[in-house]
């Protein structure tokens, strides 16, 4: 079943007086339980496509449908709610808040979503930290973690709201081989559990994890 549908997605940017096309008329489906790998050369629009699919930016033309809801047509608050509850994000650079603890960073999505039971969300955070192997570092500052540990922290944060789609933009780009394997295995496991995974990469080892591969060409 297609969770996300991209129709004729085009994105242009103004650079000075010039219009630069980053992505031109791309259509695709993101299906639950599939591991979609988006690849292609630098400047082909891989990250732009991921941003459009995840609602981080809007297409210049075309539309993205999430469960038949057009992300371009809903208001900003509803879009934020979808990002909070249905999408999880992993970026190449592990974005964390350095002044918060590991636990507080993982719990951040709950700050922007409904909290029905504080005990329940605390348990979820701890479970996901255990899952990515950071169960003993909950009170540590992110500044004391290695690159691999930071990316696992981000992974736990992406999973904590039980999302339907996980977006990963070059998640192994700043990791060594061992840590890359850990992250890719975790992503594969999530796809196997029925979540849709959308990963942007240009690494061949990473591409091998995909069940579907979309190769973009430079416009």
């Amino acid at each position, binding site marked *: 079943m297609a969770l996300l549908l991209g129709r004729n997605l085009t994105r242009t940017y103004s650079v000075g007086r010039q219009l630069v096309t980053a992505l031109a008329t791309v259509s695709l489906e993101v299906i639950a339980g599939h591991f979609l790998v988006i690849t292609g050369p630098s400047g082909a629009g891989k990250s732009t496509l991921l941003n459009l699919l995840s609602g981080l930016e809007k297409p210049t033309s075309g539309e993205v449908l999430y469960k038949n809801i057009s992300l371009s047509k809903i208001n900003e608050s509803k879009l934020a709610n979808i*990002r909070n509850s249905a999408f999880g994000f992993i*970026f190449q650079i592990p*974005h964390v808040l350095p*002044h918060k603890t590991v636990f507080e960073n993982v719990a951040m999505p709950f700050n922007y979503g409904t*909290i029905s039971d504080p005990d329940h969300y605390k348990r979820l955070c701890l479970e996901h930290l255990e899952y990515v192997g950071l169960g003993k570092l909950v009170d540590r500052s992110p500044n004391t973690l290695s690159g691999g540990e930071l990316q696992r922290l981000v992974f736990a944060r992406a999973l904590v709201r039980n999302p339907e789609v996980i977006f990963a933009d070059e998640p192994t780009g700043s990791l060594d081989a061992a840590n890359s394997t850990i992250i890719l295995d975790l992503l594969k496991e999530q796809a196997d559990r029925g979540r849709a995974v959308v990963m942007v990469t240009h690494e061949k080892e990473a591409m091998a994890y995909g069940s579907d591969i979309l190769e973009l060409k430079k416009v």
Partner: protein
Amino acid sequence: MAKIDDILIELNLDLKDAWGGLLRRKVRSLLGSLGITIGVVALVAMLSIGEGAKQKALDRIASLGLHTIRVEDARTGVGITNLSYGLVLKDTQKISAWLGDRGSVGYFSRATNIAIYNNQLKGQGTVMGVNPEWFKAEKWLVANGRPLLPDDMTRQNRVCLLGASIASDLQVSVGSNLRLHNIPCIVVGIMAAKGRLLTEGTGLSTLDFDNTVVMPWSGFPFVKVVAEEPILDGLLVTLKKIPEREILPIAEQVEEIIAVSHRSVRDFSMVVPLKLLHKVKETQNLFAWVMGSIASLSLLVGGIGVMNVMLANISEQTREIGLRMAIGATKKRIISLFLCHSLLLTLSGGILGSLLGLLAALAIQWLAGWEVAFSGVSLILGPVSAGVTGLLFGIYPAMRAASLTPARALRES
């Protein structure tokens, strides 16, 4: 109800986040709020000084009595004509007749630096001859013995009442025989301590109640006499509880009665405490405007400083804003976060400023000897105005943060 609970939970989270952000950049936060702190110090110190001046003026007016009209002898001593000899008993009778039951007229004559003897003990003080209405008007209570009675006036009794200090200095008790200069007098009462009549700045003569001896005017041996007419040193018209708006017309009429009686010779001065109150209010309004302008300017400068700090913070936190948006923060929450940030920045500056303002006011009191008074309003106004400044000057940076798109914010280096 659930919606209000959600808003409170979100506000609590944003306040905690914003506080964490402030602590992350301690030096910048401190410097950023310094302008606000200085503004609030100025505001609180000036309010305290203004409040002190106002309190002093109100104390003076309360001491004089709001429902009174005070008239004093103002003869220059030269060029006394036979047109008028000064304030005389006839003036009090005319005013009393015109007033009817709207008020009463007290009067007094006074002699200063009179030697007072109680056996071997000697003191010096003011001796006044008064009528019973004067006592009532000054609200001076008898601590021991009895007050002056109408009979004392009728019989011209040589009796007296003593102020608390002079009674204590001369070890006087009720029944003691005093000599005022060389005139004998029996003490019938000791007065309660009352302090001074607060006449500074009014043109009225001073009166230290506690060092004064009071006698019935009819038996007052030191009365000045001009052309066989005993002269009064002052009148005290006390009005019954009437609306304030009626006091000034009555005062004008009293002045007119005396002026006609004195054949237009301006040999008396008149003080209406209600007029003083109006002047105090006018001065206070002017002071409030000046003070408000200075404080507003200080807060404006402080607010610009806070806006600068906020813009610098947002510029540094662009990726963090992108991250928050990516994981579900709405524009409203981003605005709320940064408004909380600027609010806490200015509020902490305001609270610190209020405390320093109190210390500054106390230092001014100690160094310059000015009266200061602290009101709850001045203590609350400092942090509140700082908080409002924070919200006003935080709006633009907060809107700017919220206008970022998540993808663009995440790309920022």
